[in-house]
């Protein structure tokens, strides 16, 4: 395989006496969808927050595109192309699609030598169209507040935004939660499309259908530790559940049990 996009080595994060992430090492390669699986409280979100700059790890190293990385704030991670889509999506429901895709990074036109700057709505609309087209996302209208879109459509806006801003690694925290079945399918389709475009995706989830629908590889966490790493093709739901509940454990480490 080629060089990993993301390498985590011996990552540990503690909250007081609680070790939320315990000595996890992990690689993510270009063009793959990796499912990060585990029961509630397993440490999935904490691990991912260390990667996306929300938390600073207590121990261990993170390498992104081969370089040792320290992300003090989420914005630092975003600058190098690590886009995290949380459950709340970070969208402004009162604004339309182009406004959301360009939120915080609006395109502007200058007048009087830069003295007055106005929003370049035409450019943003055009780019939004192009960005959505590239992912085969279609909406009846882009110029309505996204409040009028469905949950899945909003998820699509968030994904399109990340892709538009050149995401090199997409992290999605439980993206299909709170979605109806048809909408879940659409989001899964989008995740596959991302992979086909070479953007690796880390999919945090505790629902198995997601895992089998889109992932190439699976990492299972239990009580902060990585208990196994498997190719999706080489496993089944039954086995994964046993890893998730701690009945199976590939690491031989009796101290932790």
């Amino acid at each position: 395989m080629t060089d990993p996009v993301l390498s985590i080595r011996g990552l540990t994060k503690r909250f007081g006496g609680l070790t939320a992430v315990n000595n996890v090492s992990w690689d993510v390669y270009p063009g793959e969808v990796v499912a990060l699986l585990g029961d509630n409280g397993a440490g999935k979100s904490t691990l991912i927050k260390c990667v996306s700059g929300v938390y600073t790890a207590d121990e261990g190293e993170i390498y992104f595109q081969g370089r040792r990385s320290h992300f003090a704030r989420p914005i630092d991670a975003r600058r190098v192309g690590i886009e995290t889509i949380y459950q709340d999506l970070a969208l402004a429901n009162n604004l339309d699609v182009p406004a959301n895709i360009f939120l915080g990074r609006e395109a502007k036109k200058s007048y009087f030598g830069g003295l007055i700057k106005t929003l370049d709505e035409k450019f943003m609309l055009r780019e939004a169209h192009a960005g959505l087209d590239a992912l085969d996302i279609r909406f009846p209208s882009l110029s309505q507040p996204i409040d009028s879109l469905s949950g899945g459509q909003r998820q699509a806006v968030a994904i399109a935004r990340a892709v538009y801003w050149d995401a090199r690694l997409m992290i999605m925290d439980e993206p299909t939660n709170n979605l109806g079945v048809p909408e879940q399918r659409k989001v899964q389709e989008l995740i596959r499309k991302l992979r086909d475009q070479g953007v690796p995706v880390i999919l945090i989830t505790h629902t198995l259908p997601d895992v089998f629908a889109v992932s190439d590889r699976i990492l299972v966490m239990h009580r902060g530790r990585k208990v196994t790493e498997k190719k999706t093709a080489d496993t089944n739901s039954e086995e994964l559940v046993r890893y998730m509940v701690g009945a199976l454990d590939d690491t031989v480490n009796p101290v932790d049990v």
Partner: protein
Amino acid sequence: MTSSDAKAAARASVSRLPASKQFIIVASRLWAWAFLGLMIVFFVVAVPAVGGATFFTVRNSQNILVAITPVLLLGLGQTLVIISAGIDLSVGWVMSLASVLSALAIRSAFNAGIPLFPSVVIGFLAAVAGAGLVGLINGTIIAKLKVPAFIVTLGSSFIVRGVALLMSENTTVIGLPDGIRDYGNESLFYLVRGEGGGFYFFERPELSGEMLRQLDRILPYPVLVTAVVVAIAIFILRKTQFGRHTYAIGGNLQAALRTGIPVDSHIIKLYMLSSITAGIAGFLSTLRFTAGSAVIGDALLLSSIAAVIIGGVSLFGGAGTIMGTVIGSLIIAVLTTGLVMLNVQAFWQFIVVGVVVIVAVLIDQSRDLIVGRHGPGQGS
């Protein structure tokens, strides 16, 4: 299809809504205009019927415009602040402080031998600087120390009021140069009705006796200044990144933070803008009355918030327009003027304005129930 899908499909676009709902959306968007129009028609008919003067005259329309300038100016800054999901309770008293500051500045400048116009400019700068400082302090405490805006601006209202009374030594600041009166009361156009009358631009015709009563001032300077501020506010809110960020912060603070919008400094700027528009109102009142007053803005806070709400700005943040606030201010002014001309007693005026405020919110809420809080009925 799940129920959430069905709901989403129903909300996907206006054109797919049934006609009755579409009607509600359009009506809720236009009701303020319609109400304003109906009210004017009503007063045009009703005022002469009770033996009053003609309602719809040039003079009366200009009087109404002059009357709304302070409420509207306070409402402009308030609109920006409320769209960002904040509130500024200090605007009325900031206006008073600015009135006192500009009066003191003009008087000292003029007494120090500075000519009239530069003295007025100094008065303007004093008003804006004093007001801007209050906004800076309000905004900093709200943004950096995370104290709720309601509390901060409530507290600063008292402080500002105290400072204004202290600086004015508990009385009206008088002794301003006579020429001030012209700045506050003259206008761009003049209309002299009747025989020997005419239309004059910029220069007030020399008139005496009976003829003086035939003189109408069209677009008095305070109205012009306010119109310019309105235009700037519309531009900022609709056309600039600053306006976009204001809606974003009010719509979803977390999203604004995560997408890297400089939320803290933005909030500080918003409260400064709110104070500064109040400062301009205070400055204009000093010109208009040739005096500074520490109580001039006392009653205006509630009127300005009422104007903003009647104009459809959401108190939850994220939605509203400047034109809405302009209409809201007009509704209050026309209503009050009309009721006065109908010889309706003052307490009824308050009651009617209160009813209109509540009805306005009810209309917005029923629209929100049908199409969602940020549905197609609202926008920047």
